[in-house]
């Protein structure tokens, strides 16, 4: 008797727990829409502040190349929260931001402001802080609409590109949400974002936009992008072109490193950028026989060229008071003043800082033939 009472009370207890579970937020994976990308644009003919695009993945049973399916939802609103709520009213499943990994600002919007929309992204706990940030050209919506043939899962092409799991290119800069945020807050460095250009069925990513604390200031050329990427020491592979004696040589590098050395105590403060390149010759255009002397000449020519390019880019950015490679951080890290003193000094110092570049190139071989 006693046993059966105990048993039945246990069973009732267990059952009530399940009822309890029903009441809880128990939402299965198939009751959710995964938002894989968010685009923020400036609406074209509306008084609202933003035009939000959510890219929802529609999982399908068989995963084949080019068989991905997704749907974009757009909404004009004054805030992202409002837009998301309005879009949710059009869905039958809960929108899940756990796999949102691409955040794109439209070109028009970012020329005015990127800090305010970013507040939503950084404040939301469900958005990954490693989500990739980018500028969409012509608009964020257009970028999210692109459907490459080789894509298996929605937005996977962008995940692969920026995650540097697949392609490694010297033109592609990866900027994560937290990276942009921390650089925006740090007086010693300014943020950048890669520009994604939407084409028919692929993307083109070979430029970066340099931002100040509020908005996009300038878009660099592919060559300048490459230099910045190199100086940020995030990529090891690259190709450089150099011309001497009527021939053009392509040099492929497999080791690339750059460091900054600052001399702020000097009477005229200056920064030394040291670039080290190691590589092989990949291509010549006039079939020049590459002897040892030619190799040396290519080396020196490349050294000169890279140094020149680096100085060019950095001086251009300096004139706009932009500092994407964080010379200001180097300054702070090497001075022992108080924090506010450092900030003040750097503001005055940066515009007249002398920037020099030194490149050291070592070409290991002329390739398979001499």
């Amino acid at each position, binding site marked *: 008797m006693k046993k059966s009472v105990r048993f039945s009370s246990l069973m009732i207890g267990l059952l009530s727990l399940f009822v309890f579970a029903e009441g809880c937020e128990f939402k299965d994976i198939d009751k959710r829409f995964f938002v894989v990308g968010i685009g923020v644009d400036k609406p074209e003919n509306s008084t609202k502040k933003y035009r939000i695009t959510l890219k929802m993945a529609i999982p399908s049973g068989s995963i084949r190349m080019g068989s991905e399916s997704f749907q974009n939802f757009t909404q004009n609103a004054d805030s992202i929260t409002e837009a998301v709520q309005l879009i949710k009213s059009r869905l039958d499943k809960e929108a899940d931001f756990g796999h949102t990994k691409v955040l794109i600002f439209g070109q028009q919007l970012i020329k005015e402001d990127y800090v305010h929309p970013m507040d939503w992204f950084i404040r939301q706990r469900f958005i*990954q802080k*490693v989500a990739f940030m980018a500028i969409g050209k012509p608009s964020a919506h257009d970028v999210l609409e692109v459907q490459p043939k080789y894509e298996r899962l929605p937005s996977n092409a962008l995940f692969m590109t920026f995650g540097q799991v697949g392609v490694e290119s010297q033109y592609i800069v990866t900027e994560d949400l937290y990276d942009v945020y921390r650089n925006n*807050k740090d*007086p010693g460095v300014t943020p950048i974002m890669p520009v994604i250009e939407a084409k028919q069925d692929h993307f083109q990513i070979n430029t970066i936009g340099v931002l100040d604390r509020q908005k996009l200031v300038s878009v660099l050329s592919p060559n300048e992008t490459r230099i910045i990427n190199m100086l940020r020491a995030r990529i090891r592979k690259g190709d450089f072109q150099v011309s001497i004696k009527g021939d053009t040589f392509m040099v492929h590098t497999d080791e690339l490193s750059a460091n900054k050395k600052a001399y702020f105590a000097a009477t005229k403060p200056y920064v030394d950028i040291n670039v080290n390149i190691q590589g092989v010759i990949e291509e010549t255009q006039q079939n020049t026989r590459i002897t040892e002397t030619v190799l040396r000449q290519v080396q020196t020519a490349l050294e000169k060229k890279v140094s020149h390019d680096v100085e060019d880019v950095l001086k251009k950015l300096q004139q706009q008071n932009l500092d994407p490679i964080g010379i200001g*951080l180097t300054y702070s*890290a090497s001075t022992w003043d108080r924090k506010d003193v450092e900030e003040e000094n750097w503001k005055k110092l940066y515009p007249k800082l002398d920037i020099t570049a030194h490149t050291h190139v070592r070409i290991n071989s002329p390739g398979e033939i001499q």
Partner: protein
Amino acid sequence: MINSRYYCYLIFLTMLSNVMVLVPNILLQHRFDGALTSSLLAVPISMAFIYLFTKSIARFPSLTLPEILVKSFPNWFRFVVTLPLIIIWFWAGSLPLLAFTTITKGFLNPEMSEYLILGIYLFFVSYVACMDHKKVMYTVEAILFFVAPIILFILCRSIFEKNFSWESVNDIITHIENRPDYDSLSAATYIFTGYVNMIIFNKSVKSRLNVWYWILIPLVGTAILLTSFLIPVGLLGRYAVTDFVFPWVTATDTLRLEYFFLERVMLVFIMLYLFLVLLHSAVVWHVGVGLFKSLWKNKQKTKRYDFGIIILFCMGVLVMRKYLSDVYMGQALSAWFIRIRFVVEAVLVGTLLLAARRQTKA
């Protein structure tokens, strides 16, 4: 009596479980001022405390603090020391629980009621806190054995992150000239404070540490202390880091494990830390229960006493939860706890030292 390595586990457990919740917030607030200096100063101070404490308590093998007090001081003194300690220990166990309840609600189970989360935590903590001294230590060893290696892996992984800003860290180091301040110092010494749990565990754990442990503790402690506030600085930036309510949680969200089936390191990290925080609270409350029980001179102390005291503690936490309406209040409470605790720790070590003196004279 069980091996003295369990004494070390107590210290390491406190070190690891405080990397994330209480200590870094305070240190990061003072990152441009005295945080680094205080941290470095905290190591010798804490080691001196540990040394004096270990030497004193070694004179009383198999005795708990209340028993030592009875032996060396008048009877009323026992209550004067034990009562405040009970409050401190209750506080030490409940603050991380409350902080972690907020974290889990925020990042793991946003839809769940905080009381429910707290309830399941209290279930585990109560279960462990009511076990035997030795059994508690075995649990600590077993869970540390599984969890610590993975946590160390993630910590190391975060240092080798490509985007780790070493220059931000260097900038913090260039502010080392600042004078240490009390807040940072008390926060930094809290990392080492695990040894005080020996006031109860001395009953069944050997308190003599051999030379290796004396080398290991300061090394690991310094490493953990520096990781605790330099890694968030490196990952979240020297300026932005204090913008985040839980810097460590956000910092782990900036990590990417490319060659694994997991997407967000943050979730794994929170889950692993949950093990440590629960375990830490359980150990601390076990000591709290032990102190509480010593108030009565009843010889036959059954399990029922333990359960009664634990239920009292649980009620206390639920009441605290009810009146802590926001994150800032919780953080203020932790800050005050850490400040007060430093003084109490010093007094405790002093009392023991005095007791040991009297013991040798007698």
